[in-house]
């Protein structure tokens, strides 16, 4: 030890490297650089097309300074209305389905077979992208908000059930045991021993999911599953960038309001 110290005396301090083995370090750095270089090289960019498009990009930015709410107002209104309706309905149904699945996916409550089934449902819902689910459902159910509603409900299950189950697994065992000791039935045990502990988290997550569902509902229309996305897509196809700007501003404003509200609610229930 002292020999190591002795040899380092007098030399200035240097930051210890990220990986101590120099071979591994250089291999990792070179590998990453080679990959990035190759990946960048493999991307084809049509610079003349980009140059021609800059004009449109400028139009888009100008559109934000003068958004056009009036020309397509009827389409925007009905699209927003459908988005909000889908968001509300799917969040409610999603929460209602996720609660039993979350109980099943918590290892300290559910027996192993139920745990595995519920975890499987959660994993499936998380692995499938909303847009892909929406495409399949539109193919089966046809165009319209029903496909979007089911998609969002399904996506809510994966998100909410997973996080809620983790919260249930982290809960304090003592109150739950105390309820058990009174001779409570299983339902009473859940209701008085578990539910009060996870309620703040459940409300917080639900508000957050409402926010996410609204944002997602804005794109589901691109594949025909209802909502403001269809209006947005049409506006893009017509290169009506002032209408696009108006729709995007409405989406951003709504998301900000929702985030602000959920912030207030979350601080109040804590």
């Amino acid at each position, binding site marked *: 030890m002292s020999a190591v110290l002795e040899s380092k005396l007098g030399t200035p301090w240097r930051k210890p490297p990220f990986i101590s083995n120099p071979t591994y370090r250089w291999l990792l750095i070179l590998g990453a650089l080679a990959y990035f270089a190759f990946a960048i090289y493999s991307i084809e960019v049509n610079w003349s097309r980009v140059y021609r*498009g800059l004009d449109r990009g400028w139009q888009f930015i100008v559109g934000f300074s003068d958004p056009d709410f009036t020309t397509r107002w009827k389409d925007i209104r009905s699209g927003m209305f459908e988005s909000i309706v889908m968001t509300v309905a799917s969040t409610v149904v999603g929460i209602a389905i996720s609660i039993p699945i979350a109980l099943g996916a918590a290892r300290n409550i559910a027996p192993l077979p139920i745990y595995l089934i519920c975890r499987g449902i959660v994993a499936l819902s998380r692995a499938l992208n909303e*847009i892909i689910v929406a495409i399949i459902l539109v193919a*089966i159910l046809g165009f319209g*908000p029903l496909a979007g509603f089911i998609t969002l409900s399904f996506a809510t299950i994966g998100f909410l059930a997973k996080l809620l189950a983790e919260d249930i697994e982290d809960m304090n065992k003592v109150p739950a045991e105390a309820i058990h000791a009174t001779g409570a039935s299983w339902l009473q045990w859940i209701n008085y021993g578990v539910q009060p502990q996870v309620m703040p988290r459940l409300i917080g997550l639900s508000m957050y999911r409402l926010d996410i569902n609204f944002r997602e509902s804005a794109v589901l229309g691109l594949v025909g599953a*209802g909502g403001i996305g269809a209006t947005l897509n049409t506006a893009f196809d017509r290169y009506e960038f002032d209408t696009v700007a108006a729709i995007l501003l409405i989406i951003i404003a709504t*998301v*900000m309001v929702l985030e602000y509200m959920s912030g207030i609610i979350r601080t109040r229930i804590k």
Partner: protein
Amino acid sequence: MPIIEKNGTKVWQVRDRKTQFTRWGMWLAGTMAFVYSWNVISQNTLWAMMGNIGEVTMDIGTRAMPPRWSYLDKLWGPIWDTLSIATLGTLFALIMAVPVAFMAARNTTPSKLLVRPIALLIIVSTRSVNSLIWALLLVSIVGPGVFAGLIAISIRSIGFCAKLLYEAIEEIDEVQVEAITATGAKRWQVMVYGIVPQIMPAFAGIAVFRWDINIRESTVLGLVGAGGIGLQLQSSLNVLAWPQVSLILGVILVAVILGEWVSAKVRGAII
């Protein structure tokens, strides 16, 4: 604890009358909102068409199975593109997110009145708009292709990464920063030796987390023409080539699960 007198005996209740009524009111309002929303959805649905859902599902299912494995040869290029979009998109997003995060954090921002609101505006506006919408916009600006998808993913990720990063910066231990400052270090030296080592684990975690999300998102960018495997999905869907669709969906599922596995491993190793 509210206690109510009932026939001379005291009865304990969880809530007093006022909170009970407000709770009922909130439940009523919530239920009404849901029923109304469901009604609207129901009115916009052709229920007559729903009678044969089972048949339609079975029909599509039988047509989609088995997947056309030979089509896999044509998918390697798009898979590589998708991976490039996700990885390079995350990289570019991080490069742009770091200065934004430092400008947005209360303890490192150069000016609370001018720079911080601008940084927060960048974070909110890039975060609220879905990457598919960004892709739609960029396809109309720079033309269809991988490049549009790459920029869309980068822009969408800036807000996400910058938000998590500036929260990490605000939570650092000020004592270490003070110690570095006390040695007479310059501003950038304070950053490199006082702040950066503290946020490094958070930074790596955010990078991998976002990379995982970006893989999911880049698989569908092709639907609006922004490159990657979604392009093949879209063209297969358009010609109703269900065996190809099922193969592509399978490939996407495998890619997403692999991405999540890698990200979980890396995060486990860091934290």
